[in-house]
C-alpha cells in the first residue's frame, strides 16, 4: 500500500536521540493529538528539518505513515521557534512543565484541538515575558477543566450546599470543596474568594492569558488546590516540577 505524504501543523514537545543520527520526535497536533515522529538522519544533516526540531518549536511537518503508529517525518517549515523563551530560565522551565503535563495527561493519538490551542497560547504568553505565576495557574486550571477533572468549587462536594460566606475546606480526594460540617478534619482551608476566582477564570476564552490579576493569597491557595487535583490524576510527579523547585 502506498501512503501519500500529509501535512500537519505541530508543536515539538520532546526529542530523543535514536541510533547514530536519527531522532524520535514527540509532536502535539490539533487533529491527531500526541504523535511520535521519526526524523531520519536529523542529527547529521539540518537540511530537511533545520531549527524545527527543537522543543517548543511550532512547524508544519510533512509526514508519511510509518510502522505502527509512527510518522515518518519528511520535511518541515518553521512557524515559530518561541526563541523568546530562551531568555528567561524560569519561563523556559514553566514551558517545559506545560509540555510535560500535556505529555503525561493525554493519550497518544487522541485529537485535542482546544488543548493544542491552549498550549500554543501558553507558550506564546511566556515567550512574550508574561507573568509566570498567572500563566501556570491558568494553564493548570484550564487543562484540568478540559480533561474533565474539574473538582466541585462553589458548593460542597458532599452535601451540595452552595457557599455564601462561610469558611471552606478543599480536598481533591473527596471531590473538591467541602463545608466545615462535611469536611471534619480533612482538606486545606481556602478562601471563598480563591474558589470564586478560579470559577470566574474559566469563563474567559482559553487562549487569553493577558489581563488577569490575582492577589498573592489567591495565587498561593489556588496553587495548593490545583496541585492537589493534579497529584490525583498524574501518573507520576513531573520532572520539570522538580527542576522548577531548584530555581
Amino acid at each position, binding site marked *: 500500500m502506498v501512503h501519500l505524504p500529509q501535512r500537519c501543523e505541530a508543536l515539538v514537545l520532546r526529542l530523543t536521540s535514536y*541510533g547514530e543520527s536519527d531522532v524520535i520526535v514527540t509532536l502535539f497536533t490539533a487533529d491527531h493529538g500526541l504523535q511520535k515522529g521519526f526524523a531520519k538522519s536529523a542529527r547529521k544533516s539540518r537540511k530537511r528539518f533545520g531549527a524545527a526540531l527543537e522543543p517548543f518549536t511550532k512547524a508544519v511537518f510533512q509526514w508519511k505513515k510509518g510502522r505502527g503508529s509512527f510518522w515518518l517525518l519528511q520535511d518541515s517549515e518553521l512557524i515559530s521557534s518561541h*526563541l523568546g523563551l530562551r531568555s528567561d530560565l524560569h519561563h*523556559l522551565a514553566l514551558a517545559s512543565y506545560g509540555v510535560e503535563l500535556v505529555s503525561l495527561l493525554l493519550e497518544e493519538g487522541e485529537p485535542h484541538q482546544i488543548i493544542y490551542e491552549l498550549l500554543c497560547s501558553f507558550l506564546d504568553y511566556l515567550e512574550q515575558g508574561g507573568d509566570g505565576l498567572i500563566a501556570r495557574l491558568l494553564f493548570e486550571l484550564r487543562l484540568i477543566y478540559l480533561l474533565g477533572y474539574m473538582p466541585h468549587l462553589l458548593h460542597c462536594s458532599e452535601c451540595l450546599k452552595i457557599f455564601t460566606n462561610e469558611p471552606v475546606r478543599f480536598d481533591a480526594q473527596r471531590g473538591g470543596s467541602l463545608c466545615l460540617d462535611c469536611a471534619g478534619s480533612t482538606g486545606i482551608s481556602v478562601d471563598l474568594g480563591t474558589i470564586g476566582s478560579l470559577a470566574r477564570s474559566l469563563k474567559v476564552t482559553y487562549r487569553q492569558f493577558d489581563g488577569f490579576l490575582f492577589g498573592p493569597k489567591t495565587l498561593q491557595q489556588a496553587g495548593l488546590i490545583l496541585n492537589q487535583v493534579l497529584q490525583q490524576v498524574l501518573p507520576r510527579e513531573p*520532572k520539570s516540577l522538580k*527542576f522548577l523547585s531548584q530555581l
Partner: protein
Amino acid sequence: MLGSLPSFARLESELSKLPGIGRKTAARLAFHLLRTSEQDVEALAAALLEMRRNVHFCQCCFHIAEEELCQICSNPARETQSLCVVEEPQDLLAIERSHSYSGLYHVLHGALSPLDGIGPEDLKIPQLLQRLDQEPISEIILATNFTVEGEATALYLGQICKDRGLQVTRLAHGIPSGSDLEYIDAGTVQQAVAGRREFS
C-alpha cells in the same frame, strides 16, 4: 541459530550495547573480528581495557585525562583568568581544534534539562562554583550548545557569574561561514538577525 555459538552470540550482544550499533551492525563487526588475526584482536582487547583503566576525568576541569590533571590544566602557558564552560569533552576538543582560545575549561558533563529533571546538582556545577571561589578567574565564556538545554544552562550560569561580578560572554551563533544565506533554515536566520552586531 547463534544459540549454538555462545561465544559469538556473547560478543554480538556486548557490541550491540554500544551507542549507534544495532543487531545487524553488531553481527557484521563480530564477523569482521572472526576474520581478523588473533594478534590484532588481542591488541584491540588490550586497548579497550587500557583506556578504561587509565583514562578518567581531570580533578579540576573534568576533561578526560590520564594523570590527575588534564593536559590543559597542567599546562602553565594557558591563561588562567579565562574559563570556558562546555557541556562535554568533545565540545572542548572542538574549541581546541579551532586554535582560537588559550584559557582554561570546565566540562559540565551535560546540560540543565527541565524535562528530564536534570538540575544544577546533577552536573559539575557545584565544582565550577568552587573554582570561581578559588581561582583568579575574571572572564567566563559560556560555550554550551544552542539547544534548549544548552541555553537554559547558559542562562543559569550567566546569572550566577554576573552576580559575582565576572565578565560573561556567550559564543556567537548564526550563519556558518562559507554558506549561502538562501540555503540556511529559517530558525538559524532568525537567530543570526536577532544577534546581528555593529559592522566595523
